[in-house]
């Protein structure tokens, strides 16, 4: 079924996900528009990271429909998902950098997947350009073990953006970082939206970071949507859980 809203790049309809006997997401409805940064707030175990994993089809929903780029991803095989995934980037909570290869090889990993015959000069130029964008060129030949938490996150963002994806999913991009480094990461997320019109979904439990990057916010509690709106609406919400979270 074709999506009739041209601006929607992701549509979530009546989506549920259970793990064992536990209901992680419960009848969730949500849409993400092109070019926006949607922040998903919520406490631990609210289902935020699970939703990101469902969107990129690392896990499959128990019930409901999840449409990405007008395709119901539940109907796609692992092989059919690959072209769709190449239009998306995922920044994992811990960076998920490959320990055994250099920063350059990590960042250019997707380049080699999409074009196995890429020349070394083109590979180096593309990787250097993206490392320059995240201000990390001096770490070209380093290994992930040599990087700090913030540097790992910036390399992870570089890796997610190298193929010029239309959507980037960020799983707790500032968790465990000091406020200065967090600000740099938030600025990078905003730059990507403004300069490259990338649609972003940012999962976080840090309110200040959410306000810095969000064009729209949603809040999850026990797998259910309890808030959807702008930053100001969140502060004025009468929902007891939202109030507790904001305070």
């Amino acid at each position: 079924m074709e999506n009739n809203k041209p601006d929607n790049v992701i549509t979530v309809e009546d989506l549920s996900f259970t793990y064992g006997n536990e209901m992680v997401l419960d009848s969730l409805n949500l849409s993400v528009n092109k070019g926006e940064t949607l922040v998903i707030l919520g406490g631990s175990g609210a289902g935020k990271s699970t939703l990101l994993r469902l969107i990129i089809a690392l896990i499959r929903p128990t019930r409901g429909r999840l449409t990405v780029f007008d395709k119901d991803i539940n109907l796609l095989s692992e092989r059919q998902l690959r072209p769709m995934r190449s239009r998306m980037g995922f920044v994992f909570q811990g960076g998920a950098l490959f320990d055994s290869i250099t920063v350059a090889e990590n960042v250019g990993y997707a380049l080699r997947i999409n074009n196995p015959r890429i020349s070394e000069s083109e590979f180096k130029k593309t990787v250097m350009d993206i490392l320059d964008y995240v201000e990390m060129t001096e770490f070209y030949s380093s290994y992930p073990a040599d990087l700090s938490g913030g540097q790992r996150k910036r390399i992870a963002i570089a890796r997610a953006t190298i193929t010029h994806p239309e959507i980037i999913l960020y799983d707790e991009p500032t968790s465990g970082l000091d406020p200065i480094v967090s600000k740099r990461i938030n600025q990078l997320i905003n730059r990507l939206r403004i300069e490259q019109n990338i649609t972003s979904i940012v999962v976080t439990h840090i309110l200040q970071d959410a306000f810095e990057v969000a064009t729209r916010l949603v809040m999850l509690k026990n797998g259910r949507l309890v808030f959807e709106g702008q930053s100001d609406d969140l502060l004025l919400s009468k929902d007891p859980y939202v109030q507790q979270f904001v305070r």
Partner: protein
Amino acid sequence: MQKAKRLFYHVEQFSRMVGSTIINLPAFIRYHRSTLDQMNHLGYASIFLVMAASIMIGMVLALEWGKKLELFGAKLLMGRIISIAVIRETGPLITGLMLSGRVGASIAAELGSMKQSEQLDAMRAMGADPIPRLIVPRIAATMITFVPLVAIADAIAIIGGWIAAVVWLQTDSTHFWISALDGLFFKDLTIGLIKPFFMGFTIASISCYYGISTYGGAEGVGRSATRAVMACSLAILFMDFLISKFILAFFYA
């Protein structure tokens, strides 16, 4: 009921992984660099361990059998008994059990920590299939290196037996070697070298599965490594029995 369900789930997932690995096996040529790295890490680095274990086993076999054969005045058969026992049975089995510990734990722990740090998910999220990139090189490397490792183990164990026979049992060196080589036939060598090929596949595939199905943080990685070693050791004993039974029925019927 719950346990049976979980067992069926794991059997299904393991079968899927093995099926996908077999389909993707030629990918080890494409990822030859990774395969060579794994051959070095899993195979070359195991040589000393295998040699040390084999020489002891060879010596023990010679001492135990030598005393018994002496009672019947059949000490001259010692070379033959040791060479057949080592090449057909003890060499592949001991190498398999040693590698179950070393290779099994190594693969399960490495893939397990990759799973825990979300590296496997990162690979899938970028549109890459972890089977040909991570699992095939490990399985191919184990299968390729297992055969020469068993050949080395066989040779060292027979040498160990010869040392024990000559030094402690006063057996004539020439008689030992004539007896050892006389008792060997081509089919014995074939049996001895078919086993490691299948055993290598078994060890690597079981360890890979335990690695990629790791859950529960650092504790989970340790648990996967331990379970992989246990499962590989049992599977090696079962495979050894199965192959021996099949070959005896097929070649010696």
